Structure formats: structure tokens, C-alpha cells
């Protein structure tokens, strides 16, 4: 069976896997973005807290993803929970780091001006600091998404959803007729998804970064 024949015979299954893969990554990214920005907002004004947040999240990143999921199985069980937990944790680092850098990069004289005209702490954060830090945060989200696309494939190890299942099935039956096709389909599927997400981020950037600070 050629690769094309394989694709056309299995497209139903592949599309379901791809959809689940994308949906898992997307949902984890939303959660990671919320948590990541919150962590950054809570820590960026203090040197040590910001450093701690960056170090902690980068430590998470050094744990091999297979080991992380393996370690999570006894805690949260099989399937979706370990996948979501692992993906969210991995997604944090680029977001936290970029958000801290972005928030710290806001011109102090602008913050001074915002205070001076009578903006409250919350108003300063929501109307001045976060909008100005948004471009680096969005870059962090983009990097995190690319990373999660690959890591999500490992989730199949814990019976999680996604295109990883194709790859694992192929690897475990190496030598059989469709093994290579399965691995190839899963891998290419992930690449295509990653490119689609990236295109979406470019569009989001165009729509959400105010014209005044767009480069």
C-alpha cells in the first residue's frame, strides 16, 4: 500500500486524531497562557520572584516529556489528564519568561505617566502594561505552541489523544506493511498542524497588536 492509498483509506481516523491533537494543544495553550501571564504579573516587579518563576518553569522543561507523562500516570491516571497536565506545564516557560521580559520592558516613564494621571494599579496593568507587553507575550505563546505540538505526540504513551497514536502504533509494529506509513502520517500531520497554528498566530497578531506599536 502506498502512502497515498494509506491516507485515503484511513483519512477518517487521521482527521479525528488530528482534530484531537489540535484541540488538546489549543486548550492547554489557553490554560498555560492564563496561568503563565498570571505568574508573570505576580512576579515581574520583584527581582527574586521573577527569577524564581523563570527558573522553576525552565526546570520543568528539562524533564524529559516521556518521563513526565510516566510520572504523572500514577498521580492522575491514564488518558487525557496526564496529557493536559504535562502540556500545560511545558507551555508555561516561554510564556512566563516572555511575559516577564515584556512587562519589565515597558518604559518606566510611561508607568510614571499612567500613575500621574490617576490610573489605579489594575487600570495601569490592563490598559498600559499588558497591551504594551502583548507582542512579546504572543511570541512566547507561538514558541510554546510549536513545542507542545511535538510533545503532545508523546501523550499517546499514556493512552492520550492525538496523532501520537499513529506514530506509536507504527513504531510498535515496525516491519509490518503499514508501519512506515503510520509513522509518516502522524509526523506529517503534526507538522501541518504546527504550520496552521503558526499562520493563525500571525493573523491574531495582526488583529490584536495595536497599530501604534506594530513593527
Amino acid at each position, binding site marked *: 500500500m502506498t502512502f497515498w492509498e494509506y491516507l485515503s483509506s484511513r483519512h477518517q481516523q487521521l482527521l479525528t486524531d488530528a482534530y484531537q491533537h489540535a484541540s488538546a494543544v489549543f486548550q492547554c495553550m489557553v490554560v498555560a497562557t492564563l496561568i503563565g501571564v498570571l505568574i508573570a504579573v505576580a512576579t515581574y516587579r520583584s527581582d527574586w520572584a521573577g527569577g524564581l518563576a523563570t527558573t522553576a518553569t525552565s526546570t520543568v522543561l528539562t524533564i524529559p516529556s516521556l518521563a513526565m507523562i510516566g510520572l504523572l500516570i500514577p498521580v492522575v491516571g491514564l488518558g487525557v489528564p496526564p496529557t493536559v497536565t504535562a502540556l500545560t506545564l511545558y507551555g508555561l516557560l516561554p510564556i512566563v519568561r516572555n511575559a516577564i521580559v515584556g512587562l519589565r520592558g515597558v518604559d518606566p*516613564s510611561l508607568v510614571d*505617566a499612567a500613575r*500621574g*494621571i490617576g490610573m489605579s494599579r489594575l487600570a495601569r496593568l490592563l490598559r*498600559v502594561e499588558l497591551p*504594551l507587553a502583548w507582542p512579546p507575550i504572543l511570541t512566547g505563546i507561538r514558541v510554546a505552541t510549536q513545542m507542545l505540538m511535538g510533545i503532545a505526540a508523546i501523550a499517546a504513551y499514556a493512552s492520550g489523544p492525538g496523532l501520537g497514536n499513529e506514530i506509536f502504533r507504527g513504531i510498535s509494529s515496525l516491519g509490518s506493511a503499514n508501519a512506515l506509513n503510520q509513522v509518516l502520517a502522524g509526523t506529517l500531520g503534526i507538522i501541518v498542524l504546527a504550520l496552521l497554528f503558526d499562520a493563525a498566530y500571525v493573523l491574531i497578531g495582526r488583529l490584536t497588536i*495595536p497599530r501604534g506599536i506594530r513593527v
Partner: protein
Amino acid sequence: MSESSAGGATIELENLSKLYPGSPRPAVDNVSMEIKAGETVIFVGPSGCGKSTTLKMINRLIEPTGGRIRIGGEDVTDIDPVKLRRKIGYAIQSAGLFPHMTVAQNIALVPRMTGWSTGRTRDRVEELLDLVGLDPGEFRGRYPRQLSGGQQQRVGVARALAADPPVLLMDEPFGAVDPITRDHLQDELIRLQRELHKTIVFVTHDFDEAIKLGDRIAVLRERSHIAQFDTPEAILTNPADDFVSGFVGAGAALKRLNLTRVRDVEITDYPTVTVDDPLQTIFNRLRSSGTNEILLLDRRGRPYKWLRRGDLMRAKGSLARAGTLVHDTVTRDATLRDALEAVLTDSSGRAAVTGRRGEYTGVVDMETLMNSVHELLEADRLEAMEHQHDLAETRAAQTHAEQEGASGGTTA
């Protein structure tokens, strides 16, 4: 268009101090000062003298560690700083406009925070842009980076004035713009202040700027100690000590020219013609006027060229080629120094005075300027002598009292 109403409010600083933790000496030490409503007071002093810190304590961007602040009689030392700042306009160096908001959004910030309706805010933005000399239609939707430094600063002032606060704090607002633009902005501020009568506290390290803008100047030395707090005239002619005279610098007589404006001296009328007048009229006017020269105005009434007798002949009757272009004009708000500059550079030895839209209103010449300056200096000299006389008298009285006291007291 609604006429903005709120005039100024008094500001009283009472033993105001700021001691940063871990520093042995206070950054601002026991400053007391009364600023009248509608007055422009300039804090001037060397870098690091605490003038900015003192200013920022008025809207409590820096919390004082001692003393009280009263604005319009109300003690604001302990009220919510966010509410306080909405009632105090604040303009800073390089404007501090938010780059992700349009000009209109920047200006609308404070009115929106204080709960103005959308319609009222929109009208106010238009009014303010007009007030600072920017065309609302053109500038409303622009982003700060699409503006020049001077335009940004104008928007900064408009934002500070947005909710019509009685008090305006300006922290070296014109420090980052080029000298020509700074000059324009200063003139604009003077014009604005004449319309609005806010209480303005303005920080600068440029003494010339202080002289030009201030009703009163507070010369500050280190830790914000007031070396002298008086009118510009008094500081120029009668510096309190060596520190102040050192700060005033050389050329006090020339600086005195900065204190008087063209509107205060005699502006003479001058024969004019416009470019649309037929040549015959121009000839007649030249002949009938007692002067050697007449001023040619363009279609919008702005000074265009100086025409001498014979110029038209030499140019074979072509207005486009005849005469010399008017290089420099001054407004009625310009200082005598600017006027002198213009008179010296203009080939005709006089300078045309223009109104708000650049239209001709009159002429100043060397003679007028010289006379005015002589009168001014003479008046200042008399005043200074009187002042010295008073001082001498007080001192004499003091010495007398001391001697009396000494003779009446212990026998040393």
C-alpha cells in the same frame, strides 16, 4: 463649544520632607511654600536638588515622609492618591504618551476614568486639540509615533488638561525637544495660561525658561532648600545670594529682555499693500507714504515682502521678483529678546508683528526696542535701589535694636 471653567486652586506645602529609607539625609528637607491660585510657579535648580521630588510629592507620586500638602485649602496628604491625581494635571518630559493608543484615546483617558459620557469626552477631545493648536480632524486618529516631538508634547499637555483640573504639574515638559520647538511650546503655554488661569507648578533646570514662563520662581539648592522665591524681575535685579546670582548667570540685562513681551511695547502701524492690489495702487501707496519702504502682504494677510522705492522699477513691475522676503516675524507674545533678534536679522531693521494665524498686526523697530529697554532697566534700577535702601534701613534698625539691647542688658 463649552467654555472650560475651573480656574486655579491654591497649593500650600507645609514642612514637606522626604527621607528615603537607608539614606542619612533627606532628599527634600522641610519645604514650606504657598502658591496662589492661577499662578505659574517655576522650580529651578541644579540637577539632583530635589525639585522633581518636591513636584512629585504634590500629586503624591512620591509619598512625603513628613509635612502636609493642601490644595484649594483641602488637606490632601492622606486622601486616596488615585483620586487626588485625577484632579491634578500631570505632564512630563517627552510627553509620556501611550504608544498603543491614538491621540484621542490618550487624551480621553482621564475623562473616561472619571465617568464622563462618550459624547462629552469626544467633544472635550476636540476642544483640547483645538486649544493646543492641533487640527482635530487630522490628529485625532494618529498614533504618538506618527507625531513630531513638539506635537507629542502638545498632546501631552492636552491630556494633562483633559478633565479640567485646577492644578497642573509639569516636570521638565520641554526638556527633550529642540530649541525652536521648545520656544514655540513655551509661547503656547503662555497663551494657554492666559486663557485658563490654572495653578501651574513647572520644574526646569533652564533659568531662561523659568524667566520666560514664571510668575514667580523658586530657586532651589540641594535638598530643595529655597534659596529665593520671588518674581523673575526681583531675582534678576536682586539675587538673594551668590548661589542665586551664580544660577542667574551672566547677562542679566539681556535676560531682562525675556521678561517683557512685544504686546507690552508700542507697536507701530506701517503702510501695507497686498499682492492682489493693482500695481498702480502700490506705486501710489509707496509715493504717498512717508517711509522708504512698504510691507507687502500675501493673500491671507501675512507679511510677505519689504518693498523699497525703486524695487518695482528694477524688477520691471513684477511683484514676484521685486523686494526682499520677510525672514522673521514675531507674535505679540514673543519676548523682546526674540523681537530684537528678528530686528537684527531682518534686512530692513524692523520686524513685522503677527497675530495668531500669522496675519500682520504691526511693526516693531530698533528705536522702539531701545527706548523700552532703557525704560525697563531704569525702572529696575530704581526699584533695586529702593529695595537696597529698605534693606539698609532694616539693618540699621536691627543694629540699633541690638545695641540698645546690649546696653540695656548684660555689661559685656
